[in-house]
């Protein structure tokens, strides 16, 4: 930690915010206005509701996930992302099947993952699945890659967790080429080689889905994202904010090192976790049994300790707004904020109410406030359209630019 914990400098760097709003001609009702995408991500856990003892069936959980995604679009959110898991009590083992169905039920929301396992999935299959999803969704697709930390999942897919880092690097190197080169000859150490392979279908408009690299704790992921000039998504919710600050600071510094632009031009996303009621004490009382029994941190720290240490916010919509706007103070202006809303056995009805509160009272304020004082050179969150425009204009902010190390 030592080298990275000097990130106190980061507070000074990003902590002072100009108070004047920079005039922009965007419609304030969309992510274009603030350059920020606001959305939700789901883990897809099937968890008993600790207050009623009832457990949804897998079928109910999957249908609930679709209902949540549709509600997210209705509430005006920009992104819906699903996790990928290959063991009970989780249901999303086939994310692009789920997202493909949701794509047919929605019109505007961006469909993403949180995360797609770059280690245990074959890169050829990832390239194919997401190409098809791009076409089906009309470009409303990006992907967040992660390593996966459950040991037994690796051998189920013929891999070994001890190879996690080399697998990540080799698989991702191949995935990038499959999306960018018409005919691929490839040889690696951890997968059979490819001779004269052409991905079908080609990515929509020949623009690969934007890639985020997600990390809970490891600095290697920040390095990987920086190397390729891709997005870096810090899980944020399971670790103290000082850790997230250090990881983002590392990513931004290395992004510049690899020649993708100044640290402020790097593409950063954060996780978040909230539970709201108009009266904050109601939120605390209602959420506490879910917190106390939650699969990841239940029976551990108190709700109060966890709230103080991590970004978890349980309270009124105004408190959520204030806390979320504070994230900028330690990561700088960023591009994507995803909230975890539907875990730990919360019933669907409650989750949908939460999404209404998010859409009505939180997201509009965040859009407006995130735009205030955002410097002009901070890039907006990448979309298929923006990447297509950038490529057409011959001035990519990400992967296809001439200063990309891969293109050298």
């Amino acid at each position, binding site marked *: *930690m*030592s*080298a*990275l914990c000097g990130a106190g400098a980061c507070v000074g760097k990003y902590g002072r915010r100009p108070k004047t709003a920079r005039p922009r001609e965007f419609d304030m009702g969309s992510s274009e206005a603030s350059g920020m995408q606001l959305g939700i991500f789901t883990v897809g856990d099937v968890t008993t509701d600790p207050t009623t003892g009832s457990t949804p069936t897998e079928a109910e959980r999957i249908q609930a996930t679709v209902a949540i995604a549709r509600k997210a679009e209705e509430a005006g959110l920009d992104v819906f992302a699903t996790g990928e898991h290959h063991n009970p009590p989780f249901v999303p083992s086939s994310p692009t099947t789920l997202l493909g169905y949701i794509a047919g039920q929605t019109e505007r929301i961006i469909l993403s993952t949180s995360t797609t396992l770059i280690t245990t999935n074959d890169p050829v299959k990832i390239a194919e699945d997401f190409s098809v999803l791009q076409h089906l969704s009309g470009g409303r697709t990006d992907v967040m890659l992660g390593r996966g930390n459950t040991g037994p999942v690796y051998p189920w897919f013929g891999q070994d967790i001890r190879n996690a*880092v*080399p697998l990540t*690097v*080799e698989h*991702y*190197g191949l995935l990038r*080429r499959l999306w960018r080169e018409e005919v691929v*000859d*490839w*040889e690696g150490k951890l997968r059979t080689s490819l001779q004269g392979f052409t991905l079908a279908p080609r990515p929509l408009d020949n623009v690969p889905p934007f890639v985020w690299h997600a990390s809970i*704790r*490891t*600095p*290697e992921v920040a*390095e*990987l994202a920086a*190397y390729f000039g891709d997005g870096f998504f810090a899980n944020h919710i*399971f*670790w*103290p904010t000082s*850790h997230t600050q250090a990881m983002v600071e590392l990513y931004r510094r290395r992004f510049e090192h690899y020649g993708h632009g100044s640290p402020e031009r790097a593409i950063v996303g954060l996780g978040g976790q909230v539970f709201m009621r108009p009266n904050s004490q109601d939120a605390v009382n209602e959420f506490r049994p879910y917190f106390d029994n939650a699969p*990841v*941190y239940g*029976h*551990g*720290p108190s709700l109060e*300790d*966890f709230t103080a*240490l*991590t970004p978890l916010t349980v309270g009124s919509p105004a408190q959520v707004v204030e806390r979320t706007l504070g994230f900028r103070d330690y990561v700088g202006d960023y591009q994507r904020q995803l909230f975890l809303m539907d875990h730990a056995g919360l019933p669907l009805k409650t989750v949908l109410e939460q999404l209404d509160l998010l859409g009505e009272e939180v997201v509009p304020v965040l859009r407006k406030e995130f735009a205030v004082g955002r410097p002009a050179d901070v890039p907006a969150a990448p979309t298929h359209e923006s990447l297509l425009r950038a490529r057409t204009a011959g001035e990519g902010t990400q992967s296809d630019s001439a200063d990309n*190390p*891969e293109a050298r």
Partner: protein
Amino acid sequence: MKLTIITGGLREPSSTRLLADRLVTAVAGELEHRGDQADASFVELRPLAHPIMDAMLTGFTTDALQSAFQAVVRADGIIAVTPAFNASFSGLFKSFFDVLPEGALSDMPVLIGATGGTERHSLVLEHALRPMFSYLHAIVSPRAVYAATSDFGSQAGSALGERIATAAADFARLLSACSPRARRDLVDEDLASMQQLLGGATGGT
């Protein structure tokens, strides 16, 4: 020499802390004798019990526990003392090392001690503590000190004093021979290996 003393006693006053105090005083005296200074800081595990368990459950640490980790990592030598419970170290003592970041004790000179109701448990040092610290790649001082309740009585007191003095002399020699510890930056090492991998991966075919 920066010495960090980890004590796992649960009661106040604690005989485990009492033994730790006597060990650090003896080691400091030996170091002084060799023209060196001891700079001692204590990590008491009892007040960290909740943060240690939370760290085990969530994977992250509170500030107080983080400071304890820093005190360990920055030390040139460790004195670790635990009460003997059920033929082993206490669960709290073990849990601290279970959540301590990997590599924190690599190449670290360690003097081990234990306390218990009777001297019949003294081999806990050789059967429980020494293997764990060896596994963590610490350099465990050859002479460990066990103090039973009776050792604190006046009749047996001098025998304990002699064991402490001999163990302290050994440990001071070990500390001097090892000299101040070179600190590895594990984050930098991870990044260096990642950079190497990336360098290889982009070569393509």
